[in-house]
C-alpha cells in the first residue's frame, strides 16, 4: 500500500525503464528572527518538504550514461509525477557521458554530533546570547539576523543504498557599529554553525566591535609594493580551500588542477610550513555534519594533502570513477593541521607585515590562483610599531605563495573548517591609497 509521496515516487521509479535512479526527500524546519538594535523586526517560520529525483539512462552500446534531474513538489499529483519521470528518462538519453555507476548499498553510518538538538533550543540560545553582549555608546550592535534549521534527509537509490539522517544548521549575520562623534564605522560578520556556541560567538563579536573602534583611528594605507600579509580571521579559509579544491576529482579530470597523488604540491624546495589537510565526516559544532554526501556515498575521514604531499582526491561518483578511484565522496568538513611555530613566534619571526582583519571581499580563485581583496582594516607592523590602516588592495598568486607560506601551531574552527589561527603569505602585492 502506498503510504506517502516518497513511496509513491519510489514505486514509479522502480517501474521506469532506466539504468539507475536516485531519490532524496529533504524536510526543513527553519526559524528566522530579524532584529534591528535588539528590537524584533520580523519573525519567520519555514516548513518545506522536497523530493529530488535523478534518472540515469545507458546508451545502447553501454559505453555512455546520461542523467537528468528534477525537484518534485509535495503537491504534485500521481499524474504530475509520471510526467516528470517520463521527461527525465527522455532528457537523460540526450546527454552522453562516459559510463559510471551510482553508489552501491553500504552499511548505514552513525548519526553525527549535534543531530539531536532542536530548532527552538538553538534559536533561543542565539537570541539570548546576542541580547546579552556588552555594548557601549561607541561600539554596539546595529542589527542581526538569526536562521536556525533542522534538516532531515532520506536518500535512496536503485542499488538499495539508503540513508536517513537529521542535522542542525544555523547562520547568524551580525552588523556592528563603532562611532566617534559623527564618524561611524560598520563591520559585518556571518557565522555558520550547527548549534549555538554562546561563549565563542560572544567573544568574536566583542573582537569585531574592537576592530570597529580601531578602524575609527585608521589612516589611509601607506603600504605600496610587496610585503607579507598576515591573515588572522576567517578570511584565511579560502587559502586552504585552494588546496582542497585542487584535490577535487572534478578539477583534476577537467585539467584545472594538475596535482597528482605523491606530488609535493608546495614545490620540492618549499621554504615555508607544509600543509596537511584532512577531510572529516564529523566535526563538533559544524553545520555540515552529515554521514553521507548528496549521492549517497559515505563521507569518510582521509588526508587530501599531508606534509605538502598530495594524498587522496575527493569528489563526485562521476569524476572519481573517471580518475579510477575505488572509493571517494564529496567532502563536508575540513581540518588543517597547525604549523611549527606558535602564533607569537610566527609574528616575531615575520618582520614587517600587514595584518588584514577586514576585507570588502577576500577571494582566492582556485582555478587561476589569483588572490584579491580590498582592505577595510589592517594593522601595519613595522619598525616596532603598529599603524592601523584602511583602503587599498592586496593581490597575488596562491600558485607562488604556497612555496613559502607560514602558519602557526594553534588552530581555530570557522564552522566546518579548522585552520591555523594565523597564516602568513609572503611577497603579496599591495596597492596603497597614496599611490
Amino acid at each position, binding site marked *: 500500500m502506498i503510504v506517502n509521496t516518497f513511496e509513491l515516487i519510489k514505486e514509479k521509479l522502480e517501474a521506469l525503464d532506466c539504468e539507475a535512479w536516485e531519490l532524496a526527500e529533504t524536510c526543513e524546519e*527553519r*526559524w*528566522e*528572527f530579524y*532584529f534591528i538594535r*535588539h*528590537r*524584533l523586526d*520580523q*519573525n*519567520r*517560520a*519555514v*516548513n*518545506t*518538504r*522536497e523530493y*529530488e529525483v535523478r534518472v540515469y539512462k545507458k546508451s545502447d552500446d553501454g559505453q555512455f550514461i*546520461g542523467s*537528468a*534531474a528534477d*525537484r518534485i*513538489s509535495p*503537491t504534485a499529483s500521481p499524474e504530475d509525477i509520471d510526467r*516528470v519521470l517520463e521527461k*527525465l528518462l527522455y*532528457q537523460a538519453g*540526450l546527454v552522453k557521458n562516459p559510463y559510471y555507476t551510482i553508489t552501491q548499498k553500504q552499511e548505514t553510518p552513525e548519526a553525527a554530533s549535534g543531530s539531536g538538538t532542536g530548532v*527552538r533550543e538553538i534559536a*533561543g540560545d542565539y*537570541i539570548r546570547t546576542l*541580547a546579552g553582549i556588552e555594548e557601549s555608546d561607541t561600539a554596539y550592535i*546595529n542589527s542581526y539576523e538569526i536562521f536556525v534549521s533542522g534538516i532531515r534527509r532520506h536518500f535512496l537509490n536503485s542499488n538499495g543504498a539508503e540513508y536517513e539522517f537529521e542535522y542542525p544548521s544555523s547562520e547568524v*549575520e551580525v*552588523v556592528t557599529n563603532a562611532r566617534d562623534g559623527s564618524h*561611524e564605522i*560598520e563591520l559585518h560578520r*556571518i557565522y555558520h554553525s550547527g548549534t549555538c556556541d554562546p561563549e565563542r560567538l560572544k567573544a568574536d563579536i566583542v573582537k569585531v566591535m574592537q576592530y570597529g573602534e580601531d578602524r575609527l583611528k585608521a589612516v589611509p594605507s601607506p603600504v605600496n609594493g610587496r610585503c607579507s600579509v598576515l591573515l588572522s580571521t576567517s578570511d584565511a579559509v579560502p587559502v586552504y580551500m585552494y588546496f582542497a579544491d585542487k584535490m577535487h576529482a572534478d578539477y583534476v*579530470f*577537467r*585539467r*584545472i588542477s594538475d596535482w597528482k597523488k605523491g606530488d609535493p604540491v608546495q614545490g620540492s624546495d618549499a621554504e615555508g610550513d607544509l600543509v596537511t589537510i584532512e577531510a572529516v565526516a564529523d566535526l563538533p559544532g559544524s553545520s555540515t555534519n552529515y554521514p553521507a554526501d548528496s549521492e549517497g556515498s559515505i563521507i569518510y575521514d582521509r588526508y587530501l594533502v599531508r606534509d605538502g604531499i598530495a594524498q587522496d582526491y575527493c569528489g563526485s561518483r562521476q569524476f572519481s570513477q573517471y580518475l579510477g578511484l575505488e572509493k571517494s565522496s564529496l567532502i563536508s568538513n575540513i581540518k588543517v593541521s597547525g604549523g611549527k611555530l606558535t602564533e607569537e613566534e610566527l609574528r616575531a619571526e615575520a618582520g614587517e607585515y600587514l595584518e588584514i582583519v577586514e576585507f*570588502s*571581499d577576500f577571494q582566492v580563485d582556485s*582555478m*587561476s*590562483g*589569483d588572490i*584579491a581583496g*580590498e582592505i*577595510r582594516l589592517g594593522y601595519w607592523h613595522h619598525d616596532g610599531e603598529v599603524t592601523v590602516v584602511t*583602503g*587599498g588592495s592586496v*593581490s597575488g*598568486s596562491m*600558485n607562488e605563495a604556497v612555496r613559502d607560506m607560514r602558519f602557526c601551531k594553534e588552530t581555530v574552527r570557522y564552522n566546518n573548517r579548522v585552520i591555523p589561527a594565523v597564516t602568513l603569505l609572503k611577497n603579496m*602585492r599591495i*596597492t596603497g*591609497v597614496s*599611490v
Partner: protein
Amino acid sequence: MKAPFSQYLSDIAPALKDLIAILGSRYDYVSILSTDSAGFNISISQSSKSVSNQNMTTERGSVVRVCRNGLYSEAAFNEFDPSDAARMAEQLTQRLEDQLALLEECGSKIYETDILPDEPLELYAEKETQQLPESCDIKSLVEYMSGLSDSGMEKTEGALDVIVRAVSTHISKIFLTANRDMRQSYVFTEASVVSYAPSVHGDIRVVFDGVSGCGGPEIIYGLDEKISGLPKVMKDLVTADSIEPGEYDIITEPGVTGLIAHEAFGHGVEMDMFVKGRALGAEYIGKRVGSDKVTMHEGALCDESVTAYVFDDEGTPAGDVTEIDRGILKGGICDALSALRLSVRPTGNGKRENYAHKVYTRMTNTVFDSGDDTLEDMIASIENGYLLAGMDSGMEDPKHWGIQCIINRGYEIRDGKLTGKVVAPVIMTGYVPDVLGSVSMASKDRRVDGNGACGKGYKEWVKVADGGPYLKMRARLG
C-alpha cells in the same frame, strides 16, 4: 505567444483567498505570495554534460505575511491542501505562536510598524515569449550547445575546455490580499560560454561571455556571436601580465560599467539599509555624488532583462527610479515595509530569493545612462590608462562608499592608442564619489547584462541585470 499563467496557481487561488479570510480574523494584515516556476539548467562541456529541470529560480510554494500589534511575521510552506484551508490556517498560526512564545521567554522587544496599505488592485499579466522552457526542444538545444563547445575548442588555441551553460525559467506568481489579486507570468533566459586555458605563466585563465533577457530559450541561440569572440580574448589573456599598481584614467566597457553601477550606488541606495542606518546614501539625497555625466536608473521597467517583472514579491507594481540625475543623488529604491517605516512610497524592489525567503530591498536593472561620446574619442583622450573588460565580481560597502571590483582584464592605452598589451586580473578600488565624480565621458551606446546574481552581503541570491555605456573615469588599479 504569451507565457501562460500557472494552472496550478489558478486552481489553488480560491483556497488561498479562503486562507486569507480565515487569517484575517486573527491578524491586522494578511497577504500571500504563491509561486509556480518551471525551468531548466543545461551544462555542456568536453568533460561532462548534464540536464536538470532545477535552477535557482524554479520553485513551487507559498508565503503568508501577517501583522498583529505592529509585528510582521511570515510563514512559508510548500504543502497545501486546497480542500482544507482552515487546517492550514491553524498550522501556520501555531508555528508563529510557537516562535512568539520563545521571544516572550527571551524578553525580546518589538520594532513596531504600521499596517501596510491595501488599496484594491487587480492585475493579470502574461508577457511575450517565443518558447517556454518546460516545452521547448531540449534535444535541439543540447545538440546546439554541444556544437558550440566543439567549435569553441577547435578555434580557441590552448583551451582546456569550453563550457556552454543555459538557464531558462517560466515564472508564475500570484499575490493576494483581502483586496488585491495580482498574477504575472513571464520567461527569462540566460546562457553563457566559458573557456579556460593555461597562461604563459602556468596559471589558468578564464574567459566568459553571455546572453540574457526577458524571453524564452530562443535567446540561447545568440551565443553564436559570443563564441566567435572567445579565441581572441583567450589569446590576449594567456599572455597577460600583472598590472603596475597605481591610479589611472580608465574606460569601462558596458559589463564593467554595470558592475560599478551595481556595487557603487546600487547597493548604496537600497533603503532597507536606511532603516537600519547602514547606508551613507541617506545623508546625501539632493547632494552631488558624481559628475554631470552620471545619470543612473534602477527598476524592473528599465530594461527587458532577466528581472523585468510586472510586480515585485510584495505586490508593488514595477518601477523606474532615477537614482542619480546628472551627478545629484535623487533617491533610492525601497521595499514596502521599509517604505512604510521611512514614510516614502515603495518602488517595486521588494524581492525574495524564493518563496521561502524574506523580502529585502533588492536591485533589478541598474543602469547608467548613455552620453554623446564615441569609444574612439574616449581612447584618443587617454595618455596613460586602460580599457577594462569582463566583470568577475564586486562587493558593496554602502556605509563607507568603498568599492571593490575584480575585472577580468585591462587593455593598455598609451598616447591615445591601444598598445595591444593586456594585464590580468585587475582589482579596481576607490571611494565611490571620487570614482563617479571623475566620470568625464560616456559613449552613445549601452548594453545591459543579466548573467549574474546578487547577494545581500553573502546571502539571499536574486537575479539582477546591470549595464550602461562605455565610461571614462579615474580609479585606483592593482
